[in-house]
């Protein structure tokens, strides 16, 4: 076990090379709806229980099923209204279980990235080969059902191994070259993209996917009131937009159809989206487009700056 994941070096937020998003925009805004499938009866994983109650744990399962049966289309209608294309963090077995949902997202040219196969299958305890196979299955499933070369990864239920990022990048390369497997949402160390060091030396970036703005973290873990969540989203935006004057920032709202799309939470979410998208210098985009743009325009400058500042640290 390591004391430091070794994916990135210390790189202070101030005095970095200036980022400008396409058309001079200051803030890249993306919404990442998690479209997940939780199994009612997953095999037991000794490292983590899927459900707090013995099988069948219908409460937790039921509300997540609510997301797919009811919530998904509510959120979709709202994102349509504000011209936002979702970047879906996808439990890829959902392609098999609920292809209707996948079709609606395809119709809107939304991005699909891998969130593993089921959100009840954890990385813990998998061998390197098993994790590689699982990631490969998930990326192949996305390709088979959508034709997309999966660019991003958010590990299932945020369960990782030391090799998760490496394996994702390598499988992406094996399947589709540099057009797949080039960004991660698993790290929460920054408000800008950062280059990630992998054993394969692939040009690979971390794209901020905020845990603090994540509706499940806000609502379930932090027990935030819906209207306060709406206010937090606006406050988060205001500061990142202001800082974007100096150098482009990213705001992500990770959502769950079983949280944000409940009837009592829609209003606060809508007000926040309305507020954010009404600002002129916002690039409303997807995770893949941010990662692509960054790799092309800022990756090398970032590496050089990190390297120069590492020297200054010594």
């Amino acid at each position: 076990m390591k004391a430091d994941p070794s994916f990135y070096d210390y790189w202070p937020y101030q005095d970095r090379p200036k980022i400008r998003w396409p058309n001079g925009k200051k803030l890249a805004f993306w919404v990442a709806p998690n479209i997940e499938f939780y199994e009612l009866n997953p095999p037991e994983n000794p490292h983590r229980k899927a459900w707090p109650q013995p099988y069948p744990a219908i409460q937790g399962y039921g509300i997540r099923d609510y997301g797919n049966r009811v919530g998904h289309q509510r959120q979709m209608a709202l994102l349509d209204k504000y011209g936002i294309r979702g970047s879906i963090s996808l439990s890829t077995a959902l392609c098999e279980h609920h292809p209707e949902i996948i079709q609606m997202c395809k119709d809107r040219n939304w991005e699909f990235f891998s969130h593993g196969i089921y959100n009840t299958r954890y990385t813990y305890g998998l061998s390197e080969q098993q994790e590689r196979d699982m990631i490969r299955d998930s990326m192949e499933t996305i390709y088979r059902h959508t034709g997309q070369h999966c660019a991003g990864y958010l590990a299932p239920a945020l369960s990782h191994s030391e090799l998760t990022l490496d394996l994702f990048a390598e499988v992406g390369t094996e399947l589709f070259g540099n057009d797949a497997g080039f960004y991660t949402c698993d790290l929460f160390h920054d408000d800008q993209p950062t280059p990630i060091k992998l054993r394969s030396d692939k040009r690979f970036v971390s794209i901020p996917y905020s845990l603090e703005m994540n509706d499940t973290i806000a609502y379930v873990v932090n027990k935030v009131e819906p209207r306060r969540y709406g206010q937090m989203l606006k406050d988060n935006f205001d500061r990142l937009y202001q800082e974007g004057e100096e150098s482009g920032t990213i705001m992500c709202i990770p959502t769950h159809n079983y949280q944000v799309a409940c009837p009592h939470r829609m209003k606060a979410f809508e007000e926040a989206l309305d507020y954010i998208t009404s600002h002129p210098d916002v690039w409303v985009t997807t995770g893949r487009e941010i990662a692509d743009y960054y790799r092309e325009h800022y990756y090398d400058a970032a590496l050089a700056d990190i390297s120069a500042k590492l020297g200054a640290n010594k």
Partner: protein
Amino acid sequence: MTDKVTDPNSPLHYPVRRYGMDHDLYDWSMLTDRPKVQWPNNKPLAVWVNINLEFFPLNQKGVPFKVPGGMTMPYPDLRHYSLRDYGNRVGLFRILKALDKFNITPTFAVNTELAIRTPYLVQLLKSRGNEVLCHGWNMDSLHHGKMDRADESELISRSVNQLRELTGQAVTGWLSPARNQSQNTLALLAENGISYCADWVNDDMPYRFKQDGLWAMPLSTELEDFYILGNNLHSETAYVDQINDACDFLLQEAATQGGRMLTLNIHPWLLGQPHRIQYFEQILSRLSQQPIWSASASDILQAFTAQQAAGTVES
């Protein structure tokens, strides 16, 4: 493409990765794909206010887990026991007064053991004539997957039948304590003449279980007083906001997608407190000014299934 893993012991084995659900309890269906529902008098929103009348044993076993709202201190946990009892002695009467003032119809989810212990309450329910549904035996008699089928069968028939005898009602509805079920619960409910179960929270509208004759009546957990005030520790004002926002949203959705249902699950020991009752009154006052159909759970289900039978609504 990756070969299918057939070794059942592999963590990459997915035997139910297929179209629809990963179980056989009900069919996969998206709310927006279903025909529009019409409530009586063309009201867009049916409102089901469910009042829980519960008995929390002081000597709880806590199997397979401590019920939320149950005892937390070493035996005898008088403070939690008596505060729950407060709801049935005092809080309930504030709730009833508020409901009657705004002409809102309640449905009562009753633990059968409470009905046995409090004949006064049973008389009261009888005289009011509101629907009673069975909320299991008591708040420490949980239905769970490690339970013997025969034991659960006895528990369900005892709970349902004794409540029928005591109330003189058909008692066709069911809400499990802590909403926990075993893999046999749905079948056992059907065997005992139950026609709807409110445990599942995966929809905003009724739907059909594959178990013959059994319907799901979703009773929102997310809007429940205990969840918002007791679990999330939100303010009373935030509780009111959330219900108002849900009501507004569902009314708006009903305008294009057909009748919707707003379900409020209420615990008198919590909301019947002197400092909280005014917020419940605010909710009822505002609700009573909206185009709602206030009805019992059974009446709502009947209106729904009648359209289903007429072929205008599918499950």
